[in-house]
């Protein structure tokens, strides 16, 4: 029985039943069954490649070539050691943590400052600045990449971690400002005024009153920024080509461009797993919040 043949009949069946009956009708049960089957197949398609990657990361290259399904004779933990040391994944991991960590702190700080002023103050050019910020969300990064290369070069920041950090901050700003702007506008004015009456200056009001109140908004933007920056590829690959400064995406991509018979495939799969683990952890912890943010607004 397929979903389509069964569906048109269903409502008439349902209609003949008394309302608010606890038990589902046969039609409802059948459609639920079909739905479960389809969704389970999709879940397998999603999970299988990742489980297979995990399995392969414990195999030798020879075992990987022999059969895609067989379990490893001896789990090759050495693949992870090789990935961490030989493939430079360890170095890249630390670089990524530094770059994404510092960039996150900076962009959340600068972004909340900027959006607070834009949302709460009246001054000349305010609207123009807001739209200038939005324009950064409109154009592809590819448009900027060549001149950006020379901007960084002129500052002596090309192929350096600080250069990458400031670029990450600049490109994450529009998104951050766009969403925190909306958030700051919803915060009540009374508290800020009460703080002012109590003699707090603008600086104190922001750091002691407004920033703590904006914490939920900041948290959800921070999750998206973390994912966006951790997964960033084009910027580092163009602007950060010194091997010792590579971030994870670059170190992993190196496998793709050199893939051949000499590649240690066990090491490749181990590298992939090492790269996924941090986002998996973030996903497991913040899964609810992530999906809630997607549903609440049309987040990018």
């Amino acid at each position, binding site marked *: 029985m397929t979903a*389509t043949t069964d569906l048109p009949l269903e*409502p008439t069946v349902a209609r003949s039943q008394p309302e*608010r009956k606890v038990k589902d009708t046969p039609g*409802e049960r059948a459609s*639920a069954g079909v*739905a479960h089957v389809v*969704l389970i197949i*999709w*879940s397998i398609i*999603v999970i*299988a*490649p990742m489980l297979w*990657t995990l399995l392969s990361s414990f195999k030798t290259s020879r075992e990987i070539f022999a059969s*895609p399904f067989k379990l490893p004779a001896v789990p090759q933990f050495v693949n992870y050691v090789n990935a961490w040391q030989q493939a430079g994944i360890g170095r890249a991991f630390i670089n990524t943590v530094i770059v994404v960590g510092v960039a996150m702190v900076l962009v959340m700080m600068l*972004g909340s*400052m*900027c959006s607070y002023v834009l949302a*709460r*103050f*009246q001054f000349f050019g*305010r609207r123009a*600045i807001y739209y*200038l910020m939005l324009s*950064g969300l409109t154009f592809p990064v*590819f*448009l*900027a*990449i*060549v*001149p950006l*290369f020379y*901007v960084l070069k002129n500052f002596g920041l090309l192929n350096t971690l600080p250069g990458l950090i400031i670029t990450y901050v*600049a*490109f994450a*700003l*529009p998104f951050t*400002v766009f969403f925190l702007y909306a958030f700051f506008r919803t915060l009540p*004015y*009374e508290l800020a*005024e009460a703080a002012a009456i109590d003699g707090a*200056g*603008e600086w104190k009001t922001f750091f002691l009153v407004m920033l703590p109140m904006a914490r939920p908004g900041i948290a959800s933007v921070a999750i998206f920024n973390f994912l966006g920056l951790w*997964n960033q590829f*084009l910027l580092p690959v*163009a602007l950060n080509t010194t091997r010792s400064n590579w971030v994870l*995406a670059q170190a*992993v*991509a190196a496998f*793709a461009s050199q*893939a051949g018979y000499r590649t240690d495939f066990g090491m*490749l799969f181990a590298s*992939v797993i090492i*790269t*996924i683990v941090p*986002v998996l952890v*973030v996903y497991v912890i913040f*899964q609810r919040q*992530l999906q809630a943010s*997607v*549903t609440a607004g049309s987040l990018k």
Partner: protein
Amino acid sequence: MSTSAQATRATAPGTTPRRRRRRWTFDKISFMAVFLGVPLIIYVVFVISPFIQSVYYSLTDWGGFSTTMNFVGLANFKALLTDDLFLTALRNNIILLIVLPVFTIVVALIFASLVTVAGSNRGSVRGLHNSSFYRVVSFFPYVIPGVVIGLIWAQVYDPSSGLLNGVLTKIGLDQFQSYPWIGDERTALAASIFAMAWGGIGFYMVLFIAAIRGIEPELFEAMRIDGAGRWKTAMHLTMPMIRDNIQTAYIYLGIAALDGFVFMQALNPTGGPNNSTLVMGQVLFRTAFEHGKYGLATAMGVALSIVTLAFSALVFLVNRLLGAERDVAR
């Protein structure tokens, strides 16, 4: 909470609360200078100025290493129109632009409908029971780095040791024993598109589930009482009610399809068999950072931006022409 505060909050971004005006104290000026100035300087230097410079460079013959830079007008754009490699990439991007959003949205819509509409049809708890598992699982690929998705699928598609051919041979389809999915011109682009869609379907499924749940249950009830089946309900109630969400999804996916750089670079760094998976980003990257033709490369960037903006505008226009304004009332 006073009504005036509520009124100011409800206004458009153009207007600001009138309360904080006047009193330009040192405290306030220093505060605004630092809070607005620092982020703005970084943003203008590293984002806005490269965008603008790019438009200028695209009109020059800048080679990067040479100090001379001649203004050549639209010569770079003319050169692009006869550049076979770029046109191949443009063609591939356009195929991606048509196939990726449609495929992803259709599949995501089907899954979202299954979750929300299948199963119990009445009462307050509508939709499939225990469906959060599917949402959590399907959404996960969205957070995996694109380069990793590409690399995993490149291995899955591997002719001799890949998972896909392993499964196909296992179920008796021996002709796939060593079929190179991304090494054969006939399937390379389609297989790459599937890998990209794999990463996105869960995200759009969550988006659509939320949109469908946002429709008032009374409307479904009314459809049901009128005797409409699930299919009719989906086509005549659900789809029109979530058309703005579909539009948003279409634009995001279209922009992703016009990029595609990271996926294609991980799946087939050389552009695939006979350049069948080459995208504009890859050509731009090579032209700039391997051949040093910066003028030409920035022209490609401008062309890519124009196509992207034109696409977004087109989606808005089509949605409007198809009668989006009729639904504004809700």
